[in-house]
């Protein structure tokens, strides 16, 4: 297989790598690479999880076939480079959906497993890995959930080697559209209460991360259910053709935008019918939206804190709102306890995700937020991080040492390390 010199970036475009990439087009070409380098998907991780500087990585995107669909059992066997949106598009007309879908349809199955991603139904359905019934590594090794390596692979940041394919247990649902109810929450407390009380299958909250004082933590709770019936016409994707100028996301612009966005939902709430991908992958309609942040890129901070840590959320939001660095993209969600790997992100609690322009002060603010999350007994999400330091991690991820031991045994020469695992010294944990 040939290796190509290449530079590529994480989704936030703050971090990038120059290294060598191979892109196998057929599984016969993947097998010989199995021990050489880590696999990467569509680089939808914001920081350096999919980066390998001065090293090698295997791009999986051309290996995207469905190998088997067992309609009776509701199981699909799919190559790791297939995207979530592709699966959803093929499955929905047949009465199925991937059981868990992250907020972008461009995530590959390999990336979803390696991050043990969560969706808007995490409180009910658990994490992606909980619906994986079998993983086939490029080495040929087949892992089922009772195999000790399974827990090191799911959420395992690619450190057990490239995943070639996986079997997923699907959700049976007749879904043509999503029925979405939007309600305002005027304060953080009422927002959190509503998240706790919601009985909807899918929930997600947009939070106005620029609101202060009385309005701190206000937002819009979206609750979704799958629906059958009318299919709205497909819309064409738009593209962001250039890097946006610096003022586009300046603090006053964002504050105004957020105010309007909040006000768009009537005080009494409303119910809408949305196309499936508009609900699950709202940002995918605008291709390359990450360019809106300009050349300097952006950071995302995402943490989860236990349900008892409402006070921490309040103080985080105060710090965020007064910083003037937040973008309109901020999400608050309730998580259930479901997780499938040693390093899986989810825990029972609230997860907060906020995008920040990359400016002086951004890293400092995020460092503070990381410390607060940790102090509250929470953790940060590796798929989003680009700021944390090695010493931040151990308390957050109690099974880190167990994971490190398992992956080091399988890869003693550290061929699978990425910029992320090196930056956070994850594999040196004792």
């Amino acid at each position, binding site marked *: 297989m040939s290796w*190509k010199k290449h530079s590529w970036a994480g989704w936030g475009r703050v971090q990038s790598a120059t290294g060598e990439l191979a892109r196998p*087009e057929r599984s016969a070409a993947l097998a010989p690479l199995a021990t050489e380098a880590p696999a990467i998907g569509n680089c939808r991780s914001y920081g350096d999880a999919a980066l390998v500087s001065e090293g090698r990585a295997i791009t999986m995107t051309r290996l995207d076939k*469905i190998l088997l*669909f067992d309609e009776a059992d509701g199981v699909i066997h799919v190559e790791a480079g297939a995207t979530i949106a592709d699966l959803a598009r093929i499955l929905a007309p047949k009465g199925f959906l991937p059981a868990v879908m992250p907020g972008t349809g461009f995530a590959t199955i390999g990336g979803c497993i390696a991050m043990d991603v969560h969706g808007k139904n995490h409180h009910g359905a658990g994490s992606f890995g909980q619906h994986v019934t079998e993983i086939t590594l490029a080495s040929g090794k087949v892992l089922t959930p009772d195999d000790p390596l399974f827990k090191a692979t799911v959420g395992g940041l690619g450190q057990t080697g490239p995943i070639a394919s996986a079997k997923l247990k699907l959700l049976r649902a007749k879904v043509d559209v999503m029925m979405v109810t939007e309600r305002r929450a005027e304060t953080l407390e009422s927002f959190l209460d509503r998240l706790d009380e919601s009985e909807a299958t899918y929930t997600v909250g947009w939070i106005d991360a620029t609101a202060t004082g009385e309005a701190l933590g206000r937002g819009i709770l979206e609750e979704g259910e799958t629906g059958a019936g009318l299919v709205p016409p497909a819309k064409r994707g738009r593209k962001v053709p250039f890097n946006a100028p610096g003022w586009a996301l300046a603090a006053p612009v964002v504050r105004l935008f957020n105010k309007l966005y909040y006000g768009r939902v009537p005080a009494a709430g409303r119910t809408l019918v949305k196309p499936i991908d508009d609900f699950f992958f709202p940002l995918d309609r605008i291709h390359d939206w990450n360019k809106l942040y300009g050349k300097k890129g952006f950071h995302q901070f995402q943490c989860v804190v236990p349900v008892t840590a409402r006070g921490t959320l309040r103080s985080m939001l105060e710090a965020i709102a007064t910083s003037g660095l937040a973008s309109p993209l901020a999400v608050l969600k309730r998580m259930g306890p479901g997780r499938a790997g040693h390093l899986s992100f989810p825990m029972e609690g609230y997860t907060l995700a906020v995008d920040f322009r990359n400016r002086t002060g951004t890293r400092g603010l995020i460092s503070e937020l990381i410390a607060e999350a940790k102090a509250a007994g929470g953790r940060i999400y590796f798929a989003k991080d680009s700021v944390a330091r090695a010493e931040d991690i151990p308390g957050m991820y109690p099974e880190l040492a167990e994971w490190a031991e398992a992956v080091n045994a399988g890869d003693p020469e550290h061929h699978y390390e990425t910029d992320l695992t090196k930056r956070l010294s994850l594999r040196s944990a004792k």
Partner: protein
Amino acid sequence: MTETWILLGAASSMARAMARQLAGEGANLVLAGRDMADLEAQATDLALRGAASAKAARFDARDAATFASIIEAAETLAGEGPINCAVFVGSMPPQEAIDADPSLIDGTVTDSFTGPARFLQMLAPKLEAKGKGLVIGVGSVAGDRGRIGNYVYGAAKSGIATYLSGLRNRLGRSGVHVMTVKPGFVDTAMTWDVEGMFLVASPAQVAAHMLKKGRKGRNVLYTPFFWRYIMAIIRSVPEPIFKKLSV
């Protein structure tokens, strides 16, 4: 009426992209190539993506015994409907390898020219009998002029282009259309690690372009379109100058 397509060299990136588009249209697909494991997997995948049927079949340009059963399979699937064929086969050993071992020329010419030509020669009477159908043959801009870097491959591609031009002349008389395609740089395994690539097109773009223009009756298609102009310039360079260039 449901179209039936034979894709020769179905494991190639461009063929896979075309197969996905045709599956979306509900065609019958005969996926012919050598990597049977890959083709079987593709067949399953394409059926789920909407193909009326998808079948893997062994095709080896160097083994003419594999040809007849592919044509039979397509005839069975097509019934009264049209049979179309797209040819993506070819091989390009590095010119230095050929310099070191001239016998590699035989395989290159068989893969890129005589194998597929012989297959099309067997298929031609069936298409004539149906009085309809579309053949898309993928040549290469490399066939437009002998260049120092790949003139053996270029010669084979030039051979298939001339063959396709003759076949077009013959089949056109009975309502079957033949289109010759000359792709420029396409983002495939062949160009992945080649330096100096520019304006690289995705396999999906190129496949869509080929189907659209082939159906409209285009005879020769450069894809992406600007390659027509690039190659016009390259062809117009006088030989005394060209022979000193290493383009």
